């Protein structure tokens, strides 16, 4: 029998998508073992969140009314206390920025093996996790050699649970040790847009690390101009200061849905894809035929951007 405790994530008043995906992953893990799927809802408008997550497959929701927003010290203590009470086989959390901020501490406190960024879970007598390595070049399976585990799941890998259900909703209280709350969130800031709003563009020419040098950015700018497109980029280009932050596409940049997204020298890391997979048409130009970007591309050119892009510019001049 496997009991699962999944921890809901919310931000600024709404449960995040990953919470609904955790319900699907958790229900899969419980499977036909006869165990229960518990959800923990910590902080914020817990009653509203519990209602939103009253879904089929969920047996019980435990609400912890403690604070408004995410605070990892509170989360760690709450999940620890709940785990002591419920004794779950698996603790499931989202592999999000906040997930990375508390899940490892939960595992450490509870002395559980931790597997992060799961893209597949299998539970038959033991837990087997599928995950990627080497920037998605290889996949691996990892067997957990213990009865219990903490796992974070990659957002977007499981379908969001939708079917309503009737779990028991219970308020859970525990003694928060204030002396172990040693960080304070003082505010949030939105990264502003400059003069160009890439979320508005119909066509994006997007450049990645394959461009190699700052002076080569001119080449892709030229292509963008020839196509009447806007120039965007992957993260390393912004990290290097070659383009401003508001041009970055991805998890920590902008989410774009243009008619055409032309990815040039971009490998297609999961954090990048999170920002552009909704584009209507995706073109990938990359020397590596196995680059993950081709998995989501509609049109592909396996080739050297320094040869292909000049030819393409010529086509439109």
């Amino acid at each position, binding site marked *: 029998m496997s009991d699962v405790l999944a921890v809901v994530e919310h*931000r600024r008043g709404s449960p995040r998508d990953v919470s609904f995906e955790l319900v699907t992953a958790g229900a899969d893990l419980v499977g036909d073992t006869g165990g229960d799927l518990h959800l923990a809802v910590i902080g914020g408008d817990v009653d509203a969140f519990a209602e939103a997550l009253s879904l089929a497959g969920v047996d019980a929701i435990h609400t912890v009314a403690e604070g408004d927003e995410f605070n*990892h010290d509170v989360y760690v203590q709450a999940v620890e206390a709940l785990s002591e009470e419920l004794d779950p086989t698996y603790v499931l959390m989202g592999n*999000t*920025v*906040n997930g*990375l901020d508390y*899940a*490892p*501490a939960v*595992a*450490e*406190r509870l002395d559980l*093996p*931790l597997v*992060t*960024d799961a893209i597949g879970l299998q539970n038959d007598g033991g837990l*087997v996790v599928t995950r*990627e*390595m*080497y*920037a998605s*070049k*290889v996949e*691996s*399976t*990892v067997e*957990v*050699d*213990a009865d219990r585990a903490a796992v974070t799941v990659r957002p977007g890998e499981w379908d969001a649970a939708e079917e309503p259900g009737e779990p028991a909703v219970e308020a859970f209280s525990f003694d928060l040790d204030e002396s172990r709350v040693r*960080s304070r*969130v003082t505010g*949030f*800031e*939105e*990264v502003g847009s400059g003069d160009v709003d890439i979320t508005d563009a119909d066509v994006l020419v997007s450049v990645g690390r394959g461009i190699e040098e700052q002076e080569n950015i001119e080449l892709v700018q030229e292509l963008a101009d*020839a*196509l*009447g*497109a806007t120039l965007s980029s992957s*993260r*390393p280009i912004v990290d290097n200061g070659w383009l401003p932050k508001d041009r970055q596409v991805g*998890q*920590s940049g*902008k989410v774009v849905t243009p*008619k*055409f997204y032309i990815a040039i020298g971009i490998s297609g890391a999961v954090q990048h894809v*999170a920002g552009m997979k909704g584009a209507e048409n995706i073109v990938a130009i990359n020397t*590596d035929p196995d680059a993950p970007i*081709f*998995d*989501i*591309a509609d*049109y*592909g*050119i*396996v*080739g050297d951007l320094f040869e292909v892009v000049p*030819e*393409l510019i010529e*086509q439109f001049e």
Partner: protein
Amino acid sequence: MKVLVTVKEVAEVEEDFELDGLRVADQYLDYDLNEWDEYAVEEAVQIAEESDDDVEVVAVTIGPERSEETIRMALAKGVDRAVRVWDDALDGVDLLDVGAKTRLLSAVVEEEDPDLVLTGVQANDDSFGATGVSLASAIDFEWAAVVNALDLDADGGVANVRRELEGGVEELTEVDLPAVLTIQTGINEPRYASLRGIRQAQSKEIKPLALSDLGLDAAAVESDLVLTDVYEPETESDATYFEGDAGEQAADLATVLREKGVGAQ
């Protein structure tokens, strides 16, 4: 004040590669300092440079002798000295889990007694993204993950950080010291090592530590995770590929773009 930076030599896999059992065959691996650690090293060195007090920057790595070459690059960029944990017991381990890394690094922290620990958000090879926060919990430091701005107020005993959340939102957080911060790329501009720095690095210490030096035994590196399979993922691509030389590829793509109204004058 002392700043400890965790660094890792990671292997990058070449475009074409073959697997050898549970590993990528050695000849297809290029070793380099983990991208995220470059930024953590730079942040630590800047803290030392900007402080009026004496700040020592110590790098710690878990890695075989081969990694010394990579670690020396951090020394060339201003890290004062390094500690390298390795042991025969680690030789045959395919996958060192977060718990094992935490046990090793905790022992080093006990020895070094730092005021601040900086790590990268993740290592680019196994990408667990968990060591820093796990370590913080084990050594009872406060922490913050995915930090893209840091303003250290050592006298006030706090670090004011920005955490980079999803969707272009940043969280402003006050973190009590001592703390572990996991550093995100882009927080600074990592410098290139100067010739003088490279020369100086040759005489800086990289102290090897075995498990017994840390008061640990082989049980410390026993992993709860067993790597059972490594394989190339099947491509899910249903893309239309344009073949031929660059000119032909570009012409075919141009046709599709024009058909769909892109770039049509």
